C-alpha cells in the first residue's frame, strides 16, 4: 500500500507538467483556511451558484483545474481574488479522471489545510450546515482528532422529463432537481482500501437495473485535513493511507457524516452526456454515459411515487442517509 501511495504521488508529479497556471492567488491562502479543489469542463452555467454556495459555507480559497473548457469558463473565473486556476488540454482519463492533477495541487498548496474536493454539480451538506459555517465542522473534527469526513453522494432529480425546465445561471439547482431516493442503497466493504462501497439510488434504479454491479459508486470522502503524503486513488471514493477511509463505525455506533447533493440531472444533462460519450473519458469506457444514452432515447422520468422532496440536512439525518454522530 505504501508503494501504491508512492506511485500515486510520483504520478501526480509527472502529470503536474500538464498543468499550466492561469491565475495564481495562492499567496492569499492563510494558515487554517479551508480550501476547495475541483476540475471543471464546460460548466460555466453552473459556476455562479456553485461559487456562491461554497463562499457562503465559508470556503476561503478555490483551486480549480480547467480541462480545456470552450464556453468561456476561464474568462468568467479570472479576476476573482479567492480563485486560482490551472489550465490543461490533456486527457482527463489518463490523469486518472483528474485525480492526478488535483493530488498535485493539494500536495503543493493544501498541506495542513482542510480541503474539500467536489465536482461543480455536487453540493456538500453536513450536520448543522444551515446554522454553522464549515469552520465549525473542521474545528470540531480537529478537536476530535478526526482527519477525514465522509459524505455520500445523493442523486437529486426533477419531477418530469429533464428537458422540461431550463436551468438558468445563478439559480439554485435544487429548485429544479429536488427529489431523491431515500432507502434503496446497498453497501459492501472494499477490503483493498477499507472503504465502503455504496451503490443504489435513482441511477441504479433507472439506468442499471439489469446490471447493478456497474452502477456508480456513491461513497465519497470529500473533506480531508490534507497532508503532503496523502493521495486520492479513485475519484474521492478512496484515499491512501488507508486509515483515512475509516469514516464509518464498525462497532455499532454512528460517526458523523454528510452528503453531496448531486445535481447532475438538469436539462444540461443530455448535451453533457453526448459530449462525454464522444470524448470517452470516463470510468469503464464511459459505461455510465452509455447507459444514460440508451435510456435517454425514451426520455425517462426518474421521479416515482416514493421519491422524497429534499428539505434540509435534518431530513437526511432522520432518514439515515447521514448522521450527526456525537456532534450536537
Amino acid at each position, binding site marked *: 500500500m505504501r508503494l501504491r501511495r508512492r506511485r500515486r504521488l510520483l504520478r501526480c508529479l509527472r502529470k503536474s507538467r500538464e498543468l499550466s497556471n492561469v491565475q495564481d492567488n495562492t499567496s492569499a491562502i492563510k494558515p487554517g483556511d479551508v480550501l476547495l479543489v475541483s476540475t471543471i469542463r464546460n460548466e460555466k452555467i453552473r459556476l455562479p451558484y456553485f461559487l456562491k454556495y461554497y463562499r457562503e459555507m465559508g470556503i476561503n480559497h478555490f483551486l480549480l483545474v480547467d480541462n480545456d473548457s470552450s464556453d468561456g469558463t476561464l474568462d468568467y473565473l479570472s479576476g476573482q481574488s479567492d480563485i486560482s486556476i490551472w489550465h490543461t488540454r490533456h486527457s482527463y482519463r489518463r490523469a486518472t479522471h483528474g485525480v492526478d492533477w488535483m493530488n498535485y495541487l493539494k500536495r503543493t498548496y493544501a498541506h495542513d489545510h482542510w480541503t474539500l474536493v467536489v465536482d461543480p454539480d455536487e453540493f456538500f451538506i453536513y450536520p448543522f450546515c444551515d446554522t454553522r459555517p464549515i469552520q465549525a465542522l473542521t474545528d470540531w473534527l480537529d478537536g476530535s482528532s478526526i482527519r477525514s469526513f465522509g459524505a455520500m453522494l445523493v442523486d437529486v432529480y426533477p419531477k418530469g422529463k429533464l428537458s422540461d425546465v431550463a436551468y438558468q445561471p445563478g439559480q439554485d439547482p435544487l429548485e429544479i432537481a429536488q427529489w431523491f431516493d431515500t432507502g434503496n442503497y*446497498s453497501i459492501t466493504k472494499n477490503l483493498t482500501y477499507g472503504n465502503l462501497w455504496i451503490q443504489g439510488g435513482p441511477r441504479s434504479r433507472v439506468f442499471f437495473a439489469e446490471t447493478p454491479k456497474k452502477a456508480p459508486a456513491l461513497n465519497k470522502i470529500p473533506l480531508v485535513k490534507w497532508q503532503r503524503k496523502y493521495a486520492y486513488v479513485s475519484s474521492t471514493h478512496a484515499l491512501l493511507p488507508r486509515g483515512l477511509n475509516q469514516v464509518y463505525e464498525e462497532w455499532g455506533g454512528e460517526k458523523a457524516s454528510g452528503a453531496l447533493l448531486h445535481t447532475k440531472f438538469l436539462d444540461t444533462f443530455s448535451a453533457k452526456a453526448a459530449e462525454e460519450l464522444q470524448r470517452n473519458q470516463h470510468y469503464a469506457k464511459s459505461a455510465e454515459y452509455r447507459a444514460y444514452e440508451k435510456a435517454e432515447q425514451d426520455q425517462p422520468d426518474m421521479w416515482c411515487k416514493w421519491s422524497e422532496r429534499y428539505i434540509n440536512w435534518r431530513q437526511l439525518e432522520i432518514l439515515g442517509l447521514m448522521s450527526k454522530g456525537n456532534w*450536537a
Partner: protein
Amino acid sequence: MSSVGIVMLVHTALDRAEQVARHWRAAGCPVIIHVDRKIPRPIYDAFRSTCANDPDILFCKRHKCEWGGWGIVAASQSASEQMLESFADVRHVFLASGACLPLRPVQELIDYLDERPRTDFIESATTADVPWTVGGLDSERFTLRFPFSWRKNRFLFDKYVELQRALGLKRKIPDGLTPHMGSQWWCLTRQTLSALLQDPKRTAYDRYFRQVWIPDESYYQTLARQYSSRIESRSLTLSKFDFRGKPHIFYDDHLQLLRRSDCFVARKIWPRANRLYQAFLTDQSEAMKRTEPNPGKIDRIFAKAVERRTRGRDGLYMQSRFPRHGNENGLTSNPYSVFQGFAELFEDFEPWLKKATGMRVHGHLFAPDRVHFAGGDTMINGALCDNAVLRDYNPTAFLTSLIWNTRGERQCFQFGPGDNQKINDLVARDTNAQVSVITGAWAVPLFRSNSNFADLRAEAARLQKIESEHLSILRSPLTKARVRIWSMAEFVESPMEPVQMIIDEITTGPAPQLTEAPTMVDLSGFGQFLQNLKNQGMHPYLMGDFPVEPDLVNQSRPLRKPYLVR
C-alpha cells in the same frame, strides 16, 4: 471591589478571552489571567497590552499546559495565589477558562455566592463511585505514573501503563488522602483555597499529583476534602463531555438552549459563535428574557449525541455506520414476520392475514421472477423496486432497507425454498424476526400443478434439499429469531391453533377476533401424490406422514371449519 474573583485559564482565542474578562470586570470582579506558555511571546505581549488599561485584570506566571498534565494545575495555583494576595476583598475564587461564557448576569452569581459565604462549589466524588473513565483508567490514575503524553505518545503511554500493571508497580497515595475526582471547574472560598495553597505538606502533595493522570480533575477535588467545612459537590459551570472525555462545544444555534439552561457559566463556546457572545455579553436584558428554564434539555441533547455515537440506530446500515458481524445492536429496526408454507396451504392466506391483523402483507418478496410487494405494487417506501436483479445484487441490504424504510409498520411476507435463500442467516440471527414454517408445504403447488411427473420429481427433490438446509439454520443454537416449525401433517390436524398463536403475538393491544378462518386447499389425493414420489425413489419427508388412503384425509376435513381458540 467584588467578593468574587475570577481566575481565567486561556489557551487560544485571546480576543474572546479579553471580551469575557471585560465582562467580568464590568460587574466589578477582579480577573487574573493565565496564558498558556505555548502561546508565543509577541502574541502574549500584545494581548497583555490591550488589557493594560484595566488595573484589575492581572496576568500571572505562565506555565506550559498540556492536556492531562500538571501544567493546568500549576497555572491555576499561580493564578489563585496571586488573586488571594492582590485582592483582599475576594471571598470566592471562580476558576474559568477563556472559552467560558457567563450566561446569567454576573451580579446574580455574586449575590448567589454572598448568600453562601462558607460553601465551596467543587464536584468531588470518590473514584469507586463514578463511571467517568476515559481510557479505562480510574483508580489507576492515582497509583501509576504517566510520564508520556496521551495525545502525542499514545503508544508509549499505553505500553508504560501495561508495563506497570505487569510488574505490579504501585505508587503510594499520601497519608490521609482519599482520591476524589470531578469537573475541573470549581469555585472555592478564600478559607479553603488558602489553606490548600499554604499547607506545609503542599510540596509533598504537589510532587505526588505531578505524576497523577489528569491532575486538574483530581488535585483540588481531593484536597478540598481536607480543608473545606462545606462542600457542595457540583460545578457552577455547565460543561458537557462526549464519550471520549472531550467537552461538547456550544454554537450559535444553541442560543435558546443556553437561555433556558439556568446555569451561571457555560463552556466550551466556539470562539466564532458571534451570536452567543453578542447575546450573553452585550445585551444582558435581552439574554434575560428567558422563557421557563429547562436545564434538562441540554442534558438530553448531549446524552443522545453520545448514544448515537456509541450505539447508533438499530437496524441502520449507512455510510458512517456499518457494523461488523455481531456488533449490529439489532440487525433490523423493527419486528417483522416471515411465513413459510402458509400461502401454499391456504387458498387466500395473504388477504386473510391482512384483514385479520391490519399489517402490510407481502407475497414472496424473494421470489425468482420479481419482488411480490403487497397489493401488486412495483415499488415500495424508499423507492425500493420490484426488480429481482437489483434485489439479488444484495438481498440482505434489500431486507434491512425494507424494514428500515417502513419502520413503524409491521411487515409480513411469504417465504419458501423457491426463493432467494441468501437472507436466511440474517433472519435467523435477528431477534426482530418471527418465523413460522410449515415444512413440506411447498409440495402442495406441485401436487396441484399440471406438469410432467419427472419435472415435479426433480423440483420436489430440489425444494426439499433447500428447505432442509434452511431448517438446520433455523434450528441452530445461534438462532435468535422467534421460530416455530410444524410439519405439514401436524399442522393440518389443527391449523387454527398455531395461526391464532402467531396472530396474538403480532398484534398489540386487544387481540382481534378471528371471525373467519382461511380456506385450506383441498388435500384429497395428496397422500397418494407423496406416495408416487416415493415410488419414483424421491422420499419426501419434510411434510410428515400423510396416509395414502383418501378416506383418512377426508376425515380431517371438518378441521377446516373455523375452530378458534380464544
